[in-house]
């Protein structure tokens, strides 16, 4: 194959095609009741995103309300420990403690612009729920958050935060009572309330235009990182992948650049071979989940399988369709890290840098530590997607402290 001008960069898609697809992935596998709303949303988002007033308002809120730009921190002590130069993009320092606020603010002001009065969301780790509840409080919209019962238990701090912010947190008991089931329930709400309600999906998943819109609201992570690097080159860019919003937000601006290796870290849970994991790309197959064609965990007859991860935000049997496209085209590669390794990542970053990461983000840290030998001498940019306060009970229990 010849490399045309731009080479791999030409593979990167500014926006999905007319069918809402990135290559073979994405689309709109939604019930008819939602189709007019989804098509309208695609147009409304495109209009808003082309409107400099809207974009300026978005960036102004990110700056003055959520505290952007988040720092790019040279993690010298971690670098020493791992023998590779590690830079951390500090999304944990954004208001509410994770990258999720970028998307929640963006979609909330879009909902206001289009006259919606009510916001709904699903949440796994609770970070997206908190971000949506925050954006709802700020914009004065009503807010309902669906959350699996298992996640309500393991992320109770975030449940309290959502309630403090005035959101109604609705427990979901179906299935494994985790993120996938919360998405189902939010979709069911939306089918009933679509005339007044906007569904702020929390990751780069769902039917078109969500994966594209969420990526656009999250690409600030990568765009900002490139500015903060001031011309310094990086060899590897790493991010954890649940539905893939922090990862696509970080990866997209780098995608196709020569010499940059994009690495998405999925949850290996108890280990890929045990079958108890969340590695949709690493160990799944193409299928249709939550409105999009993408890699997912399923059996031979197309029943969705349950994911497993210590981290509620990665405990999901699917992944955003653009990641499926990145995986197939080689724009990025995807690896996985077990629960135990992730706990090691929490420990490592806490000790070396004085930063307690979210269990999700700890997967990215753990991969750097695990692959340190191969990364020696390189510059590695890690998206530190969130902070670990929400996970303290679980981490303390596992570590036998507290």
């Amino acid at each position, binding site marked *: 194959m010849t490399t045309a001008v731009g080479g791999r960069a030409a593979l990167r898609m500014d926006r999905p095609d007319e069918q809402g697809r990135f290559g073979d992935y994405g*689309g*709109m*596998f939604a019930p008819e009741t939602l*189709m*007019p709303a989804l098509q309208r949303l695609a147009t409304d988002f495109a209009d808003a995103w082309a409107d400099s007033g809207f974009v300026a308002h978005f960036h102004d809120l990110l700056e003055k309300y959520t505290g952007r730009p988040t720092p790019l921190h040279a993690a010298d002590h971690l670098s020493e420990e791992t023998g590779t130069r590690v830079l951390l993009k500090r999304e944990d320092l954004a208001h509410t403690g994770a990258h999720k606020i970028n998307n929640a603010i963006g979609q909330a002001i879009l909902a206001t612009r289009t006259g919606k009065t009510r916001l709904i969301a699903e949440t796994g780790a609770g970070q997206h729920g908190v971000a949506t509840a925050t954006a709802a409080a700020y914009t004065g919209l009503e807010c309902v958050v669906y959350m699996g019962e298992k996640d309500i238990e393991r992320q109770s701090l975030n449940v309290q935060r959502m309630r403090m912010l005035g959101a109604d947190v609705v427990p979901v008991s179906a299935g494994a009572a985790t993120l996938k089931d919360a998405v189902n329930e939010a979709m*069911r709400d939306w*089918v009933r309330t679509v005339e007044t309600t906007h569904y702020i999906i929390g990751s780069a998943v769902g039917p078109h235009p969500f994966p594209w819109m969420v990526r656009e609201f999250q690409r600030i992570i990568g765009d900002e990182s490139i500015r903060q690097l001031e011309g310094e080159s990086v060899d590897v860019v790493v991010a954890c992948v649940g539905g893939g919003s922090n990862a696509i937000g970080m990866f997209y601006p780098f995608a196709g650049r020569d010499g940059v290796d994009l690495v998405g870290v999925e949850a290996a849970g108890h280990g890929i071979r045990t079958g108890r994991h969340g590695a949709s790309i690493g160990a799944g197959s193409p299928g*249709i989940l939550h*409105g999009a064609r993408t890699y997912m965990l399923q059996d031979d007859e*197309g029943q969705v399988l349950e994911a497993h991860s210590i981290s509620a935000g990665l405990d999901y049997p699917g992944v955003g369709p653009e990641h499926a496209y990145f995986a197939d085209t080689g724009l990025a590669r995807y690896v996985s890290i077990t629960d135990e390794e992730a706990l090691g990542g929490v420990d490592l970053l806490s000790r070396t840098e004085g930063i307690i990461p979210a269990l999700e983000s700890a997967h990215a840290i753990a991969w750097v530590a695990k692959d340190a030998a191969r990364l020696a001498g390189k510059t590695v940019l890690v998206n530190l997607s969130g902070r670990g306060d929400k996970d303290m009970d679980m981490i303390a229990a596992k570590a036998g402290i507290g």
Partner: protein
Amino acid sequence: MSRRGLDDLFARVRAEGRTAFLPFMTAGLPSPDRTVECFEAMADAGADAFEVGIPYSDPMMDGPTIQVASARAIEQGMTLKGGFDVLRRVVEATGKPSLAMSYANPVFRLGPDEFSRRAADAGAAGLIIADLPLEEAAPVAEACDRSGIGLVLFAAPTTQDERLERIAARAPVFIYGVAELGVTGERDEQSDHPRTLAARIRAITRVPLVMGVGISTPVQAEALAPYVDGIIVGSALVRRALQSPRPITDIAEATRSLVDALSE
């Protein structure tokens, strides 16, 4: 049976000036060994055709009743293969045109051709795929054509007229009019949505119109009968399959009162 079974049914009910009744039941309910008997009882009570629910792990368009039914059927060993087998036995035992109801993922997991061929082999007259809108329907519609079965397309209260025209132009075996906003499940009240939608569809096309979602009582069914070719009731029957101590007797009785309401 092929799509003809449904085409003939709608021609017949139109000629007779009545409204067909198409009950939905999850394959494997009320129990794996009594599920065919349950469909037979509904046929005896006057059902014209069936929607056989192939239980899916993530039924996004379904409310609590059918969610619980799907989960229970799967727990008790119902599979896609098993669902097609139930459909085959239902068609053999009752001779009624029957549709397989599923979600997009199983269809694309097998591949649209394999899925529709298996449905056709089992005697299905058509497919209803809850999360397969017009934009994504082409590969499945073409596969159904090749297998000689019909694909149902949906129209909802939110569907604009211009879109209704494009849905009708695909000549589905029938248009499934989504009567109420929201997922499947019983409703106490009937909104204006179903009548408005039926009138809009009627103004645009002669394609048979069957309404479902949120229709559960004879009163609700009767109110819509003049506007549609058929009525689908699911959750009200599935609830009986899940909860009643005499599920088949109860389902037969409920079917009879719905059939009676439609022929008033």
